């Protein structure tokens, strides 16, 4: 199946923002696309988080110094990384990670408020989720500024792991205030875990820091943050692979294209068929008539003077490192 070509139109990217929809694609199609992306990101991020992080994110008395900030970002980076790849490749928007983390937080709040709090009556603070929004934005900025998957995995991945604790400290620290309870020293979270019944989740099921004879105990937050960062660098590639091979690879079954974007799906496409900026009909910073109208071989003599980023050119068009 070939992609249908829209009618010719002559707008730049800035024009798009000013003038709104093109005659061929009204904004309703954009809204439809967003309406698909929002629940998709929310559902995938939320289900992944619930299945793998689960109790660490559900309950305040699981949010310890060791496992919670170690596992949450490592698991949490996978879907944002996949979303980052997909949104960048399909829409040219470096916002997939932010979108995934925002959708994750919104869907978590919907779950915690309506089920944990409004339905089962747990206090809101006891079941409040963690946020990953600062980390998602950091990941997108890392890609926006480097346009390199490798550098994004290193810089953005490390930031993703390191930022988790600072981003959540104000949300959670109140639960770590000490309480003397029946002559034992506990935190507020421990007291709530004792009092608010979770019949099938006795405290021995908690996987939390239990102390050990290793060094760096005083610096455990730093050690865990850096370790999580290193883990995020590795797990980022899991998300990248998910986006590239799970989200894109099946597309080749349905889409026959000579696109350089999806070209890797069809290794037989010769390199000289890859469009160059000038041949693609680029006007200043936006989509020129040739670009939209299928004029891949039309020379408009335009120069991409306003396009940003450290590199451009056919050989690096897909953001390859």
């Amino acid at each position, binding site marked *: 199946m070939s992609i249908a070509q*829209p009618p010719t139109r002559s707008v730049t990217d*800035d024009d*798009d*923002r000013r003038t709104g929809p093109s005659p061929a*694609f009204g904004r309703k199609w954009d809204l439809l696309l967003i309406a698909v992306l929002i629940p998709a990101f929310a559902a995938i991020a939320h289900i992944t988080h619930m299945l793998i992080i689960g109790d660490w994110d559900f309950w305040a008395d699981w949010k*310890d*110094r060791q496992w919670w900030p170690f596992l949450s970002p490592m698991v949490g980076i996978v879907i944002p990384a996949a979303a980052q790849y997909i949104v960048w490749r399909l829409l*040219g*928007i470096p*916002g997939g990670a*932010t979108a995934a983390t*925002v959708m994750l937080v919104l869907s978590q709040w919907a779950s915690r408020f309506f089920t944990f709090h409004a339905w*089962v*009556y*747990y*206090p809101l*603070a006891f079941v409040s989720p963690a946020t990953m*929004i600062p980390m998602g*934005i950091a990941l997108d900025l890392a890609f*926006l500024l480097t346009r390199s998957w490798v550098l994004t995995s290193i810089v953005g991945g490390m930031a993703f792991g390191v930022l988790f604790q600072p981003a959540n400290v*104000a*949300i*959670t*620290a109140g639960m*770590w*205030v*000490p*309480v003397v*309870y029946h*002559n*034992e*020293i506990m*935190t507020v979270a*421990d007291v*709530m875990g*004792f*009092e608010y*019944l979770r*019949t099938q989740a006795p*405290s*021995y099921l908690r996987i939390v*820091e239990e*102390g050990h004879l290793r060094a760096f105990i005083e610096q455990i937050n730093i050690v865990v943050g850096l370790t999580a960062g290193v883990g995020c660098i590795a797990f980022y590639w899991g998300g990248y692979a998910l986006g590239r091979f799970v989200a894109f690879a099946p597309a080749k079954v349905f*889409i026959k294209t000579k*696109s*350089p*974007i*999806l070209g890797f799906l069809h290794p037989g496409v010769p390199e000289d068929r890859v469009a160059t900026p000038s041949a693609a009909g680029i006007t200043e910073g936006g*989509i020129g008539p040739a*670009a*939209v109208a299928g*004029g*891949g071989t039309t020379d408009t003599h335009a120069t*991409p003077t306003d*396009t*940003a*980023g450290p*590199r*451009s050119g056919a050989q690096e068009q*897909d953001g390859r490192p």
Partner: protein
Amino acid sequence: MSRVSTFAGQLLRLALVALTVCTVGLVGATPAFAHGEDKQPPNLRTRAVHFYDVQFSNPDIKVGETFTMSGNMYLSQEWPNGVTNPDVTQLTVVAPGPTVLVKDRKISGQFISQSMRLEKGKSYPFEIMVEARRAGNWHLHPMLAVHGAGGLIGPGQEVHIAERPGGAPFTNDVTLATGETVDLETYNSGESVVWHLLYLIPALLFLVYWFAKPLMPRLIALIGGRRTPDELVTKRDVKVSVALGLVVLGITAASMVYSSIKWPDTLPLQVQNVATPAGNTVTGTVVAELPEGRATYHNATDTLGVTVRFHNLGATPVELSYLEIGNHIFDTDPATNTGATLASDQPLTLGPGEQRDLKLQLTSIAFHDNAVIPGAEVTSVIGSLAVFKQGNAEAHTVSELNLPVFKDQVAP
């Protein structure tokens, strides 16, 4: 086209029927009043922990008032292989969510905040103080959770919790180490919501900025191979994104400063050692054995017949008070009779040093309805605890009885 419409119409009608059936089903659903304990194999649940003398101090209370669950747990010496040893356990309350709060939990008089190690063959008096939180009729049980095995549920009772006069909201006040008293029902909720919103607002602006761009033209241009993603990003896009990113990172930094000022002294989550409360030795005074080596169950009359040879080794007389099987109490007192009866061919009193064979008949519909009698199981044995009064009513001695159950068509 018309065929497609017809097919779509059929699908729509099917969906409506399914929705109607589901909705009607929900309307007709009745609340569950059990916790699934009857579905645990009887040879496991009746032979591991025996709850006896369990009492609920006041089953009719108002929100904010407290009541106590108390009693004894005897951990069977013949602990079944299918249940992990009770090295890490926790006594808790089975309830439909946090309808009540656990305010105190004592095992053998010792406060147990988290887990405990128990010994087989010992009895542990327990006391759980519970505060009513939500109005309603709630079915509550004590339960011993065993690490690696699951929950072993004790006898339950329905508790009726009424609203406070005037409907005043429930509060759960706790005094922090700083001396400040806070209400755990609402504590820290504000901070949590506000900081989430502070992160959310710039992030949504970031997304609105990017996703407000005409998306379909970008998609077509990219998929068609006429543009690359790099070419669609302007310098202005970069500036706006970096600015919003810096705002979010600034909020993160501010949150760290805020929390260090507001909560200068915090602790990591506290993990207590596994407690080892002292258990009582309550066996040994009366020895019980089965001269016939089995019990016989007659399905038509819901009767379990067994001959037990009791030998009182103590210096005082004892009287068989009741037999406990799977939280069901079989006794001879019609006043306390709950549908489970105990009949004997001889008096239930044993003098010092006396040995006697008692032919007992235990009758209860619970044998069938609550699946106390093993069905097709790998071990056709159920556990029972014979509880004896010793001199005065407060002191008990118990004997553990494991009953191989043989199903017979002839009434015992």
